[in-house]
Every structure is written in structure tokens, then in C-alpha cells.
């Protein structure tokens, strides 16, 4: 039993769930009716009008109404929206025990100690029927959920079923009139009653306190003072007792059917709630309180929720957890549903049952731990008594029929929780508070005492989180020691981020009003990064890719950044359990264990995350492109110190102005100030601008606010004498004497000062000023005006000096150097972004340079291939060497161990030897480092006699044969042997992974073609040759590929012959006619090499030009026609047609050449003469190039490695060729 919510109050006598909202009504013994939100755990309202205990309480299913009945004999109907009692129904003559609305009709059913049951119409507010028959208090009366029946329970020891179809017909049929002749008693003139007793159920030995119908079946449950719960069955004609549930040892107060399961719940004055299995009639759960007698039970009509009222309050509870057991690994979700382990592929949404669970536990699976390495699961089951909890270890069957999956035998042991800690180890917390480390056979391999540990959680490989009363500890299982601890009570769930760098601890505190849940996010060292409180249940959570924790509460999906920022993403109707978050999708399981995907808008938290991580470009992008507006985000930005970002959102000028000032953006502030044009704005702007040295704006502000003093001073310090003088004039006009004087002082204008002093009657000062500063005339004039009798002429201080402000060197027109800091991060980031863009552009411009570098690299390659190494012979392969070296060490140490003798083990068969034994393909021998056999194979198969060109290929191939891994420190590394048949190689059948693919070689052709196109023939030939020589080092799987490999050789040969001949031709002299004829012949032969059309076009153009020049028009015309057939570019075609036309005028050849286009021939690759068909010819065994017989035995010009005319086995590149 899981308590969701508890209240403390006076005795609770009545309870009613709201059908839709998370509300419950509790009627109390002290006359108060409470309306609670059990999800938020808050008291919504209180209704206190009854005098004395309120026992009957019921929500209306559709209207915002509820009904109550009390010991004041009153039935009250309330509207909770209006928060008041609408009316009171009077009529009962004693306590009212229960009051219920009819699910459909506008009726209220009440049961009373006055021994009657009454039916009221709450629309007409009258009693429509009185059911009499019980001869003691009626404790309970309820409508049938679908039929015209009422069940009642009374202290007269009977349960009665009443038929009220008569009442319905009378009152609710069209034209029915209430309160007609029959009157309130419900008995008409003919003695027919509206409500008649249908069945009287006798069986209880004491008064019956409660009776209720089953929601769907013809069953009744009752609870009585004889401490029994009875189940009754009825049909049209009779009703009988089915069974009795015995167990309560005091009066049973209430009994109800579980709305969805075959269960009965009852509670009693024996302070217990009991759950009974309906079919077995046995108690399955008991829940006791220490001091409180239970009085009433309520069942939620739709959810798995119940409520029970007792002496000091009530509780809302459910019978079992609805949280599915699940585990996520990679793209897979594993979860338990209906005794099946199911697997959901997040990517393909494929949901399959992979295994059937062993039955035998009445409790659902509590939690799951999945082991991807072994494809095994641990399923933990919690019993009511924790000590009886068990876990099952299952190996998931590899292949399974989803329709009817296997039910593999698991291993069951007792233990509270079992969690994987390594691929072949798991930890079990047992009831003795020991931590057992077990292997895959479920055997204990290690035992650690953890006395105060209450629960364990996964914490990455080799670690666990241990929970005790006041904290969570990261525990290293191998070292058996604590690594870190964090103080947080009652952690229920633990969610690690994918890289286990962060963990979210979900804790649950209390069930009462003081309840709150909390989320603490810690790093790997369990240092708390933030703590979030929720006054509502936190259900589940998962980390998204960007490191944001997404969690669900009972009614929201929310996010939390590790910085502690959190907020709501969306609302939920019903609780869900998040399994994974990817992008906009939240994958979850609902309470029915259905996998669901919900879409969320991640903008807000992504935005905040970008801010926290100072990814300003991202922020800016989102500001510009996302619909991120609203006061909240502005307030957030301001609060978090990003006013400059907020500035981008704000339209309101006032806010804009404040924000601009806050981030020191004077331009924006000025704009806003102009729009607002308020004195206070200008003042604030002036101050801010002055701080930044933006004196032009300062000037404008002072002007706007008419702050003459400050303006004057500003002009002084900026050396703007003209404006300073103007200010003095303005002061004079404004009759601001002191301002005027100050201006004169600033300007060093002595005569003006004298004038001012004189004008304001400061004669002595005027005189002194004039006298001191050598204005003698003026001084004299003033002296004259003194009345010597009354006034004394002041003494002139001989040491007096003229106070003259230093003259400005240059008036300051521009601003002072501005403080750049005040620009703020954000603008800074934008500026930086601009720069980065330029840098990127620079890089692009440098790209051609990169190509040049690439050429260098290629050159290196060529050198490497042709490279010559030191030539010192050595017989042993490298296997021997490395072994020899490592043997040195143990031989000394091992000697002492074995009775003074040490017999070194003989060398085993190395994988490389195996490779040689298993294959006749040259490359396998090269990879194995067996050059001797490799060269022999190449010699025998394709006639290689000159291995020079193969050296680079051999060394390269060899270097990819074996990998490296480090053993003990300071020792030479161990070598791995990648094998192409690694899955089924075993110890003897191994063959090396080749690492050279036909497709790669074919791809390399493109490069060669490009070199050809760009006329770099020698380089091209090198590359073609490298490809050609690599072909014998291939391994292919099928005949198709064997053919392709041979075709590849042919292509290379044709190009090598053609390009080499062309290179040769270009070197030849062309002075004499014979020499020119030879050049033409070679050009003509080139057109018979099998080339790509794009190259053939070029070859034909050359031949065409040469033959045209030689006036061999006839042959030239044939080249022109061949050229046109290839569909060259328009301009080429046009030119060709012109030449062709010219040729066709005189279709003759001026000179006789050794070239007959109509007589098929092979070209001698050494002498470049045609070998017409039928003439003797020798061929290269690898390339197939043709030669005059005189060249037999020489090295092939094409391969530069093979012997012309050599008798060989032939190319071998596949094991197929040996069968």
C-alpha cells in the first residue's frame, strides 16, 4: 500500500473523490467539510455550516455540486465554484448517515437513523420518496451504478435491495407530475409503491454498517459489527450470501469493491484496512494504524486510488505502485508488462516481447537492471514485508518469437535490490544489510557489510550508490570503500547521464502536508551542483543529449540545468515515466505500460543552456529565429545578468532604455531616450554616457535637460571655447550672474569679469580684478568712482596672478576613447563571430595552397614507393626477435621458482604461421611477414622477377598485418592479429584481414584519369602501375570480382602503354620527314589504346592535327570521324567538322606510313610497332602487354616487375581459384 497523501483533522466520517480533478471531500465529526487537492497536497476550501458531525458527502459527477448530510438532520447541497450552500433539504427526523447523488437523475439518496431512506429531487428541492422497512438506524444507502436499484444497510442486521423503477417511471416519464395524489409516502391509491423491497439479505449477526454494489457484476459487499465482510449475489428473483471474509477483530465500518480488480477493501474500528481477494476470499494485504479507528472508505471512479477516513484525519492511497520497471540501454528500452519482458527499439519503434517471466510472485516487478554485455536482466520484486523481497536473474533468449516468447528458467534469490556492477558481476543488498557481489551463476564472490545501507543504486561500472538515513554514498565495490558522500535524505530514484558525469537524485520527503520532493544534481564526485524543490511528486527523469535533465512530476514535464535553472516544458494529464529524451521527443511509459512519445518544445531550456555555457552564437541564433518572447524570459535574462541579450527581445521603449543602460549600450539607450523624451531618461543617459566618455551624447543630454552648469563645464573640459562663450552669453541673457561670471572665469575673459562685477555692484572686486590684471584704464575709471570717504580702495596684491585656464591645444570634437568593456559579452561574442567568419574565408582562399601541399605529400609517397632501404640480409622473421627479447626477462626470474630448474616453454604456433599454412594467396604471406614464400608465389603466379617496385607495397602491407596493445608497463607491447574470418577462425583456420579492397583500387583509378586529363603523364603512369602491381595482392570473394580485378589490370595496361608511348613521342626529334612520319605513326597507334572517351578525344585531336599537317588527309578524315562519334564539346566538334570538310576535298594520303587502321593489331609495348594479328607475339604474364618475340625474357615495360613471355600459373586473388 502506497500512501499518496495524508491529512490531520478531526475524525473523518465521509469521503468523496472528484471524478476528474485531483480533489477529495472529507466530512468531519466537528461539522466541517474540507476540500483537498491531494496531488498538490493543499486545502482548497472549507465549508462549515453543519451543526455537529457530517457523515454523508458526495460530489456530483457533472455539476459543480456536492451534497452533505449531518447529525443536524440537514441535507445540504453546495456549489463549490460559488463556494456556498445552495439550499438545505429538511425532512429526516434523526442523524443522517449517508447522502449520494444519482449518477443520472436529479436525485439524492439519504439514509438516516430515523429508520428511513429518502430520495430527493435536488432540482425541485423536494423529497420524492420515502423508503420504509428497516426497523433500526439505516447506516448506508446507495444507488446501483446502472440499474434502478438501491442497496441499504441497517443496524437491524439486514441488507436490503430496493427496486425504484416505479419511482423513475413516475417522476421521469414525460408529463409526470410530482407530489401528486400519492403524496410523499410513495404509496398510491392502489397500494403500489414507487420503491419496493426486492431482497432482504440476512446473515450478519450484528448491525450492518455499509453495503455497496459491484460496479458491473450483480454483487453486493457489506460490512457489519459482527466483524465480517460478506459478499452477496443476486438475480432477478433472489439474493444469497456468497461468502464471508473474516479477519477484522472489531466492527467493520466500510467495505467497497475495487473498481478494476478482483479485490475488496474494507476497514474497521480495529484500526486496519484490509484487502481481500474476491475469488479466493482471502486477505492479501493489511494496513494498520496505531491509534486510529477507521470509519469510511472511498474509491476513485477512474484511477487506482482509494481514501480512508479515521479518528485523526484521512489518507489517500493506492494498493500498488503503478511505476513500470524499465531499463534503457543505447537505443533499446526494456520494460516489464503483463509478466513479459519487452524490448522497444527507440529508432524503429519496434516493440517486441522477448521473454516471459516466471510467475509465482503476487507483487509486480519493482525495478530492473540490464546487462548489455551478457544480455541479462535482474528483476527485483518487493514484498510488503521488505525482508521477503526477491530478485530474479534471467538470461534473455537470443532469438524469440514475439507472439509466444520463451519463458527461460531464471535464478531467484532473496534480496532487496540487485544491480549490475560489471559485465559479469552484480551486487545484491540483502536483508541482513550485506552487500553481496555475485557472478553470473548467482554465486557469492564477495561480501561487504554495509550496516546502515537501506538501498543501492547503479553508479557506473564497479561502483554503487548506497543510501542510508541521511545521505547517498558513492561506493567502490572492488576497493570496498566510500569515494564520496552527499547529504540528501530519502532518495528514491537515481538517473545518470549517458556519460555518467552527472547524476540526478530524486528524493521524496514525507506524505503529509509538509510533503515535498526534491531533485539534486551532482557531478561524478557527488558534489551537489543544484537542488530543486517540488511541492508535487517527481515521477521520473532522463538526461537529454545536451546535458539537460528532463523530469516529470504528476502533472508536468520540466527541465533542470545543472546550474539549477529549471522550469516547466509542458503539462501532463496523467503521470508518465520518462525513458529517454532525444531532441524534441520525450519517450515514456504510461501507467498502463504503453510506450509513448511526447513532443516538447526545447527552445527555452536550450536557450538557457546556451547562455549558461556562453554559447552566444547559439543564443543569438535562437533570439533571431525562435519564438522566444515574453516578460519571463526578459526578466530571466536581466536577473541572470544578460541584459544585452534581453535587449534583443524588448519592444517597450522604457524597458529597452533601462536594459540598454544596464548593459551600457549608449546607442540603443539614446534611441530609446529620443523616443521617450523624458527628463529623467536624459539625466540617466547623461550620467551613463559621461562614465563611458561619450561626451557628444552627454552634451545632448545636458542640452535636453537644460543643465547649463554641467554643460558649461563640459565645454570647458572638452576645450570647446566657442560654445563656452555661447554659454556665457546665455547665462547673461538668463540673468544668471554667477553662471555668467563662471563662464568668464573659465574663458579667462578678464574684461568680462570686470564688467560683470561692476554691473552687479561689486565695485571693489571689479577694481581689484582690473588693477591686478593690468587693465589700467578700467582700473582708473573704477578708482574714480570710489567715494573715498565712505569706501576704501582695496590694496592690490602685488603677487596676484591671473587665473587663466590653459588654452586647449585642439578642441575635442570626437568622443573620448570609449570603454569597450561596457559593450558586454554578447556584442563581444557577435563581433568575434564576425571575425571568425573572415578567418574561415581566409582559409578558403588558402585552399589552393593546400592543394600544392597535397602535391608534395604525393611526391613523398612516390619517393616512399621507390624508396631504397639499407640492404643487409637477415634470416629470422620478427616473431623470433620479439620473443627472444621477452624471454630474457622471465628466464632469470622463473629459474628460482621451479626447484632451480627452468625449462623455457617451446614456442607455439603463431597466427602468422597459421596464415601461411592456410593460404596460397601472396598477400596473406606478405601480411604474415613471410616474404620468402610471398615472393615465390608472386614469381610463380604472375612471373615477377624484379621485386623493386614491390618493396613499398610489401612493407606497407606488412605494417598493417598486426596491431599493438600494451601489456605490463616497461615491457614491449603485445601484438594482435586481425583476421578476416575472426568469427570462426578458431586456433587453426585463421586468415589475415587483408585491408586492401578491389573497390579502393578501382576508386584510385579516378585520380589517374585526372592526371591523364591534365597531361601529367609520367605521374599518371606511376599511379596506374601502382594499381596494377597491387592487384595480385588482393583477396576477393567471387567470380565477378575476379573478372573485375582482371579488367582493372587491362585498363591500367592500356593507359600505361599509351601514356608511356606518348611521353616517348614527345621526346623524339621532328626535323626530317621520316622523323615526322614516325611521330604520326605513334600518334596513330595511341588512338588504338583502349582509353576513356574523354581521353580518346584528346588523343584523336592530336592524331588528327598531325596527320592533317602531314597532308595525310584520308587517315586524318578517319580520325576526324572517330572523334565526332565520341560527341566532343561543340567548339571541338565544329573545328573537327571544318578539318573533316577540308580533308574530304582531297581524300588521299601524301605519305606512306606503317599504320593500317583497318587491319587489327596489338602494339609492342617496347618498340611501339604494330603487331598485326597472326604475327608471333609474346605477352607479359601479369599485365598482358604484347611484345615482339625479341623481347622475350626481358622485364615488362608496363609492370617493370614481371618477365615477358614467362610461363606462369596465372593471377590468383581468390581461394575460389584453388578449388
Amino acid at each position, binding site marked *: 500500500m502506497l500512501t499518496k497523501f495524508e491529512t490531520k483533522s478531526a475524525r473523518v466520517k465521509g469521503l468523496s473523490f472528484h471524478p476528474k480533478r485531483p480533489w477529495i471531500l472529507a466530512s468531519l465529526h466537528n461539522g466541517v467539510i474540507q476540500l483537498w487537492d491531494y496531488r498538490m497536497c493543499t486545502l482548497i476550501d472549507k465549508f462549515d455550516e453543519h451543526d455537529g458531525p457530517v457523515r454523508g458527502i458526495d460530489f456530483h459527477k457533472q455539476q459543480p455540486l456536492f451534497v452533505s448530510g449531518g447529525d443536524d438532520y440537514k441535507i445540504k447541497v453546495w456549489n463549490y465554484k460559488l463556494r456556498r450552500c445552495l439550499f438545505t433539504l429538511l425532512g429526516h427526523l434523526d442523524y443522517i448517515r449517508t447522502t449520494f447523488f444519482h449518477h443520472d437523475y436529479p436525485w439524492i439518496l439519504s439514509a438516516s437513523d430515523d429508520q428511513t431512506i429518502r430520495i430527493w429531487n435536488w432540482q425541485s428541492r423536494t423529497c420524492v420518496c420515502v423508503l420504509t422497512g428497516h426497523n433500526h438506524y439505516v447506516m448506508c444507502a446507495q444507488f446501483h451504478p446502472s440499474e434502478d436499484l438501491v442497496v441499504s444497510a441497517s443496524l437491524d442486521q439486514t441488507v436490503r435491495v430496493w427496486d425504484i423503477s416505479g419511482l423513475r417511471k413516475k417522476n421521469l416519464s414525460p408529463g409526470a407530475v410530482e407530489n401528486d395524489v400519492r403524496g410523499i409516502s410513495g404509496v398510491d391509491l392502489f397500494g403500489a409503491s414507487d420503491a419496493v423491497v426486492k431482497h432482504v439479505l440476512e446473515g450478519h449477526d450484528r448491525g450492518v454498517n455499509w453495503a455497496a454494489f459491484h460496479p458491473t457484476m450483480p454483487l453486493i459487499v457489506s460490512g457489519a459489527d459482527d466483524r465480517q465482510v460478506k459478499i452477496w449475489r443476486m438475480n432477478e428473483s433472489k439474493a444469497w450470501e456468497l461468502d464471508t471474509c473474516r479477519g477484522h477483530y472489531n466492527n467493520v465500518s466500510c467495505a467497497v469493491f475495487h473498481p478494476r480488480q478482483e479485490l475488496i477493501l474494507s476497514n474497521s474500528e480495529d484500526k486496519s484496512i484490509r484487502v481481500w481477494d474476491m475469488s479466493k476470499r482471502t486477505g492479501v494485504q493489511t494496513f494498520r494504524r496505531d491509534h486510529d479507528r477507521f470509519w469510511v472508505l472511498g474509491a476513485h471512479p477512474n484511477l487506482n486510488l482509494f481514501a480512508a477516513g479515521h479518528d485523526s484525519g484521512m489518507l489517500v492511497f493506492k494498493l500498488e505502485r503503478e511505476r513500470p520497471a524499465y531499463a534503457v540501454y543505447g537505443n533499446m528500452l526494456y520494460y516489464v508488462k503483463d509478466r513479459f519482458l519487452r524490448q522497444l527499439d527507440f529508432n524503429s519503434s519496434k516493440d517486441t516481447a522477448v521473454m516471459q517471466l516466471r510467475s509465482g510472485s503476487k507483487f509486480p516487478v519493482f525495478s530492473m537492471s540490464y546487462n548489455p554485455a551478457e544480455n541479462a536482466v535482474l528483476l527485483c520484486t518487493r514484498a510488503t514485508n521488505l525482508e521477503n523481497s526477491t530478485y530474479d536473474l534471467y538470461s534473455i533468449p537470443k532469438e524469440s518469437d514475439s507472439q509466444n516468447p520463451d519463458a527461460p528458467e531464471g535464478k531467484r534469490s532473496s534480496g532487496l535490490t540487485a544491480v549490475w556492477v560489471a559485465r559479469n558481476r552484480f551486487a545484491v543488498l540483502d536483508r541482513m544489510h550485506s552487500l553481496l557481489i555475485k557472478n553470473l551463476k548467482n554465486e557469492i564472490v564477495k561480501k561487504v557489510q554495509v550496516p546502515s545501507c537501506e538501498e543501492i543504486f547503479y553508479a557506473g561500472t564497479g561502483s554503487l550508490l548506497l543510501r542510508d538515513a541521511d545521505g547517498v554514498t558513492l561506493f567502490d565495490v572492488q576497493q570496498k570503500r566510500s569515494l564520496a558522500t552527499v547529504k540528501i535524505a530519502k532518495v528514491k530514484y537515481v538517473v545518470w547521464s549517458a556519460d555518467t558525469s552527472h547524476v540526478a537524485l530524486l528524493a521524496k520527503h514525507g506524505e503529509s502536508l509538509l510533503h515535498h520532493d526534491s531533485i539534486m544534481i551532482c557531478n561524478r564526485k557527488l558534489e551537489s551542483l543544484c537542488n530543486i524543490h517540488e511541492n508535487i511528486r517527481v515521477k521520473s527523469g532522463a538526461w537529454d543529449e545536451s546535458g539537460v535533465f528532463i523530469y516529470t512530476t504528476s502533472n508536468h514535464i520540466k527541465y533542470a540545468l545543472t546550474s539549477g535553472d529549471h522550469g516547466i516544458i509542458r503539462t501532463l494529464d496523467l503521470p508518465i515515466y520518462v525513458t529517454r529524451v532525444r531532441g524534441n521527443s520525450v519517450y515514456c511509459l504510461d501507467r498502463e505500460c504503453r510506450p509513448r512519445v511526447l513532443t516538447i518544445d526545447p527552445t527555452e531550456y536550450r536557450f538557457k543552456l546556451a547562455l549558461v555555457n556562453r554559447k552566444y552564437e547559439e543564443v543569438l541564433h535562437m533570439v533571431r529565429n525562435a519564438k522566444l518572447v515574453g516578460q519571463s524570459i526578459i526578466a530571466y535574462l536581466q536577473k541572470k545578468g544578460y541584459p544585452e541579450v534581453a535587449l534583443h527581445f524588448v519592444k517597450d521603449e522604457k524597458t529597452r532604455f533601462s536594459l540598454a543602460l544596464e548593459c551600457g549600450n549608449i546607442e540603443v539607450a539614446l534611441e530609446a531616450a529620443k523616443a521617450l523624451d523624458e527628463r529623467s531618461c536624459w539625466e540617466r543617459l547623461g550620467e551613463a554616457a559621461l562614465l563611458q566618455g561619450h561626451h557628444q551624447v552627454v552634451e545632448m543630454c545636458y542640452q535636453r535637460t537644460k543643465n547649463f552648469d554641467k554643460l558649461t563645464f563640459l565645454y570647458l573640459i572638452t576645450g570647446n571655447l566657442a560654445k563656452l562663450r555661447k554659454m556665457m552669453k546665455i547665462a547673461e541673457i538668463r540673468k544668471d550672474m554667477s553662471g555668467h561670471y563662471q563662464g568668464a572665469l573659465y574663458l579667462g575673459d578678464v574684461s568680462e569679469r570686470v564688467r560683470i562685477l561692476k554691473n552687479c555692484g561689486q565695485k571693489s572686486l571689479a577694481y581689484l580684478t582690473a588693477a591686478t590684471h593690468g587693465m589700467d584704464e578700467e582700473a582708473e575709471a573704477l578708482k574714480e568712482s570710489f567715494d573715498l570717504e565712505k569706501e576704501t580702495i582695496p590694496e592690490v596684491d602685488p603677487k596676484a596672478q591671473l587665473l587663466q585656464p590653459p588654452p586647449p591645444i585642439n578642441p575635442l570634437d570626437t568622443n573620448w576613447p570609449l570603454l569597450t568593456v561596457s559593450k558586454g559579452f554578447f556584442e563581444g561574442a557577435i563581433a568575434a563571430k564576425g571575425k571568425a567568419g573572415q578567418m574561415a574565408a581566409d582559409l578558403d582562399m588558402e585552399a589552393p595552397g593546400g592543394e600544392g601541399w597535397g602535391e608534395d605529400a604525393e611526391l613523398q609517397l612516390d619517393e616512399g614507393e621507390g624508396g631504397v632501404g639499407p640492404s643487409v640480409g637477415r634470416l629470422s622473421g620478427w616473431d623470433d626477435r620479439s620473443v627472444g627479447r621477452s624471454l630474457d626477462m*622471465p628466464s632469470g*626470474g622463473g629459474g628460482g621458482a621451479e626447484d632451480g630448474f627452468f625449462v623455457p616453454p617451446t614456442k607455439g604456433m603463431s*597466427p602468422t604461421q597459421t596464415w601461411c599454412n592456410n593460404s596460397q594467396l601472396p598477400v596473406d604471406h606478405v601480411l604474415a611477414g613471410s616474404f620468402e614464400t610471398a615472393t615465390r608465389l608472386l614469381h610463380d603466379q604472375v612471373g615477377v622477377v624484379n621485386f623493386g617496385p614491390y618493396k613499398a607495397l610489401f612493407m606497407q602491407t606488412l605494417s598493417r598485418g598486426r596491431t599493438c596493445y600494451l*601489456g605490463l608497463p616497461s615491457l614491449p*607491447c603485445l601484438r594482435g592479429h586481425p583476421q578476416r574470418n575472426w568469427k*570462426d577462425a578458431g586456433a587453426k583456420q585463421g586468415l589475415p584481414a587483408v585491408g586492401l579492397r578491389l573497390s579502393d583500387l578501382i576508386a584510385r583509378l579516378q585520380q589517374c584519369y585526372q592526371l591523364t586529363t591534365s597531361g601529367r603523364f609520367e605521374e599518371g603512369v606511376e599511379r596506374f602501375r601502382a594499381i596494377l602491381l597491387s592487384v595480385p595482392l588482393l583477396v576477393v570473394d567471387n567470380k565477378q570480382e575476379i573478372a573485375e580485378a582482371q579488367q582493372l589490370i587491362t585498363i591500367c595496361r592500356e593507359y600505361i602503354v599509351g601514356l608511356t608511348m606518348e611521353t616517348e613521342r614527345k621526346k623524339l626529334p621532328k626535323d626530317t620527314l621520316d622523323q615526322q612520319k614516325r611521330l604520326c605513326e605513334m600518334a596513330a597507334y595511341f588512338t588504338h589504346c583502349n582509353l576513356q572517351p574523354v581521353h580518346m578525344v584528346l588523343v584523336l585531336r592530336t592524331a588528327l592535327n598531325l596527320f592533317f599537317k602531314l597532308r595525310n588527309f584520308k587517315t586524318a578524315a578517319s580520325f576526324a570521324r572517330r572523334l565526332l562519334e565520341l560527341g566532343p564539346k561543340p567548339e571541338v566538334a565544329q573545328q573537327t567538322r571544318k578539318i573533316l570538310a577540308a580533308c574530304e576535298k582531297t581524300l588521299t594520303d601524301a605519305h606512306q606510313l606503317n599504320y593500317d587502321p583497318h587491319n587489327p593489331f596489338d602494339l609492342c609495348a617496347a618498340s611501339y610497332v604494330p603487331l598485326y594479328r597472326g604475327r608471333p607475339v609474346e605477352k607479359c604474364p601479369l599485365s598482358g602487354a604484347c611484345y615482339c618475340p625479341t623481347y622475350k625474357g*626481358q622485364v615488362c615495360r608496363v609492370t617493370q616487375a614481371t618477365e615477358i613471355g614467362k610461363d606462369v600459373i596465372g593471377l590468383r586473388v581468390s581461394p575460389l581459384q584453388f578449388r
Partner: protein
Amino acid sequence: MAAQQTDVDELFDVKNAYYIGSYQQCINEAQKVKPSTPEKEVERDMFLYRAYIAQRKYAVVLDDIKPSSSPELQAVRMFAEYRSSDNKSMAMSIQVLLNLDRVDMARKELKKMQDQDEDATLTQLATAWVNIAVGGEKLQDAYYIFQEMSDKYSSTLLLLNGQAACYMAQNRWEEAEGVLQEALDKDSSHPETLINLIVLTQHLGKAPEVTNRYLSQLKDAHRTHPFLKDYLTKENEFDRLVMQYAPTATA
């Protein structure tokens, strides 16, 4: 908290860092830890100096360990002097046996180690080595061992190259690339990483220039590395062998 602290190895971090090849961390840990007994102190120092030796900082060891130091440390000093190990551990036997291609004997030796303490770091590592040599399905097990250790502690060049060797043995070249890239990021001139990259780049079908670049790097930084010595030997062998062949006729 709850666990018994009595059987905790106070030098665990020191040793562990040493075993997984994280020598600097070993040194750091050793300097941090405060041993409870003089014996532990000596033990700590042994690991400290061996880590220095692994880093080739022999001078530190030779200077620090005086003739008056404990006999254990004298041994370490000798180790530094001769750069040869007196380590008689079974792990070394296993490594030697593997080098001898005696997988069968290595397995027996491993069984002994596992009987002693299957979960010990060194046992786990040795298991991985043997698994790589056995091949087939065992490769994945070996991979998990390396993966687990890097999860548990931190990824090191030793662990990453181990993982790479497993991947490559399973022909999972793309995955190996990621691991080796990580290793390369940690130390761009680590010889074993470079050797593995020489293997890998070819199997990935990369241009020969790429492979040659790693080879050049290796030649630059580790001229005396066994791989290069072997390489040179094989070049010489090649040159000698091909002298046996010649064309029948010359032009």
C-alpha cells in the same frame, strides 16, 4: 559510511594508476597519500619509483634511493639501473607466453591468477590479453574489460589501444578509428597508437599518404622502437630475397 574500512587498500589509487599505465597520476597519488605504517610507506615509494621508471625518469630514482634506503627500494633502484624488471608476476609470465604464442599455457597461468583474485585490475588486464590472443567471441569480452576500466577510472593510452586492438581484431575498423583518435588526442606521438593507426588507415582504405605520415611520425619520435627495428630487418630481408630473382634476358 557503512563499509568496513579495515580491508581497504589505502594504496589502491596509486597501484591502480600504475597498472593501467597512468604513471603521472600514480606519482600524483603517491605524493598525496599518507601511509598509515612504515611498511605501507615503502610500498608507496616502490610504486612511486616504478612509475618514474615507467616514465623513463631513471635519474630521479637513482638519486632518491640512497644506499640507506630499505631493501625493497634497493631492488627498485636496481630495476632502474638495469632497466630490467625483477617482476615475477604472473601477469608477466602471461605476457611472455603470449609472445611465445603459447595461448594454452597463458590460459593456465591466467586461471591461477583468477583463482587468487579474479577482480584484481591486473587479472582483468591479463584476461583481456589472453582473450585477444584467443580471438573469436572472446574479443568482445576483452573489449568490455578495457571499456569497464576506462569507465571506472579514466581512459588511458593503454586501455584505448587495447580497445582498438579488439575492434580491429573484429574487423570493426570504423569503431577502432574513434578509439585511436581519442588516443591520438591524448598523445600525438605515442608509438603504439601510431602503429595501430598505420594498420587502421590502410584497412580503412585511406590514401597511402595518410599511412606514411604516421610511419614518418613514428620514425621521427621513436627510432629505436621494436616495430621500426623489425621493419628495418624486414626491409633488409626483402632486399636480400629479391636478389634471387632476375629476368632471363636484359634489354
